């Protein structure tokens, strides 16, 4: 028997709302399966499960907001008899070696667990996760929304249309997929407030970073003419669908450089540095609605540039749609922020705890560049490192940036 708890999806998460269960009691799951969709105030996350077994009981119903560490569901290991839904009470059991470091947080006093009224649900509605999230924000009852998407799926536009329609006489009277009454700490979280919530979440994480992490900063200019020329020639050979973006080279170079200087890659936990064998590179992606998020591409160092590109495309697409996976959010071991072709020349980032380094790349600019006694115009990028002085020193940080620079001079080897 194992407990499936509300995961901590990043240092800035304290509570999460179960938007949707994708499994029901009796379903067989394996490691890595997506079992639930959770809203974290910052993004909608598809939560993966890390043990195989059979779902025995779902404890937290859809629509309920609970603290990190709360028991969400009980899973019977494969072979273990599944005691039928003779429901044990919805209390966290005396945790048998809970997989989370933190003890399960006590239920918030402001959110007394409401009686688990199962919404009558003969068939599952087709609702895009983005629409689901907007529905929660706008307090729209999805049961009353007419879907116009593929196969009658409810889209964001449908929800917004429903929100604009005059409210029926008794709002929220029917069984609803929306938040259970009283489940929400705050009275009303409108769509406009979503931005404020996002800022609050970022504020908490960044304030913690600056409070706890003694940052040091280094910067160096890198000639990227070879990298860009190689990329252009490579892309000429490729069909539209397989072309790569320049930032893929940066991600791979950073991942490879962590092999030389491992103190940049890992977590600072409980007063010690825990290096990571592999580099899960977090990619800072700004959200057009405001705010940003830095999900990880896993094990970048062993992937080809083409594979990284496929991952990056997929990741950006899902960030834009507002849906990410739990493993991407929680386990970046180092973060890269690249300003691409717009913005400014230099960025010194704030480290995302518990990580210990952040590499920044400014926009590409053409600059006079002296080399071999000659001055020519070259595309140049300012690479910066924000390092955690508890885990490394400026000397090693300098070697790290120098390694990145060297790797970018031989793009064909990346």
């Amino acid at each position: 028997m194992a407990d499936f708890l509300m995961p901590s999806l990043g240092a800035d998460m304290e509570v999460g709302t179960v938007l949707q269960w994708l499994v029901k009691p009796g379903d067989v799951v394996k490691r890595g399966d997506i079992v639930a969709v959770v809203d974290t105030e910052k993004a909608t996350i598809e939560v993966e499960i890390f043990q195989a077994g059979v779902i025995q009981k779902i404890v937290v119903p859809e629509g309920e907001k609970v603290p990190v560490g709360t028991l969400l569901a009980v899973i019977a290991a494969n072979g273990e008899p599944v005691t039928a839904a003779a429901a044990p009470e919805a209390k966290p059991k005396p945790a048998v070696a809970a997989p989370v470091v933190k003890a399960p947080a006590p239920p918030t006093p402001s959110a007394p667990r409401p009686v688990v009224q199962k919404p009558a649900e003969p068939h599952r509605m087709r609702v895009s996760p983005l629409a689901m999230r907007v529905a929660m924000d706008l307090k729209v009852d999805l049961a009353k929304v007419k879907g116009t998407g593929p196969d009658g799926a409810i889209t964001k536009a449908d929800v917004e249309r429903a929100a604009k329609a005059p409210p029926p006489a008794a709002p929220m009277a029917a069984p609803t997929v929306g938040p259970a009454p009283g489940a929400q700490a705050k009275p009303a979280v409108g769509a406009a407030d979503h931005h404020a919530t996002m800022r609050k979440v970022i504020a908490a994480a960044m304030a913690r970073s600056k409070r706890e992490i003694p940052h040091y900063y280094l910067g160096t200019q890198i000639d990227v003419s070879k990298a860009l020329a190689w990329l252009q020639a490579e892309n000429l050979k490729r069909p539209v669908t397989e072309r790569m973006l320049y930032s893929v080279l940066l991600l791979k170079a950073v991942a490879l450089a962590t092999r030389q200087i491992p103190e940049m890659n890992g977590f600072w936990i409980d007063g010690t540095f825990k290096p990571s064998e592999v580099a899960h590179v977090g990619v800072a992606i700004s959200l057009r609605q405001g705010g940003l998020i830095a999900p990880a591409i896993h094990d970048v160092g062993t992937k080809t540039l083409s594979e990284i590109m496929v991952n990056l495309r997929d990741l950006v697409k899902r960030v834009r749609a507002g849906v990410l996976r739990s493993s991407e959010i929680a386990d970046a071991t180092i973060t890269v922020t690249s300003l691409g072709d717009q913005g400014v020349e230099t960025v010194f980032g704030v480290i995302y705890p518990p990580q210990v380094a952040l590499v920044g790349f400014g926009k590409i600019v053409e600059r006079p560049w002296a080399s071999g006694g000659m001055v020519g115009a070259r595309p140049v990028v300012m690479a910066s490192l924000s390092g955690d002085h508890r885990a490394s020193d400026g000397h090693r940080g300098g070697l790290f940036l120098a390694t990145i620079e060297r790797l970018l001079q031989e793009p064909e080897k990346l």
Partner: protein
Amino acid sequence: MTEAEIKALYLRELHKIAPEVELDKIDPAIDLREQIDLDSMDILNLAIAIHESTGVDIPEADYPQMASMSGCVAYLRSRST
């Protein structure tokens, strides 16, 4: 493809890339990178989607023309004749 078909295609793909954008407020003449903060990944996805729907091969050097609806219409019309 007619101009109307190209526009419809463009808006449909743009909606997939930027679902939060209100399409009826898009100015067809202005670069979307400035207008709604699209980045290089968004423009690449737009180029890929347009390539997949039309079969027109779009060299990387022409991507900037995908960044506005008018630019894309002019580009595709010149390429498909």
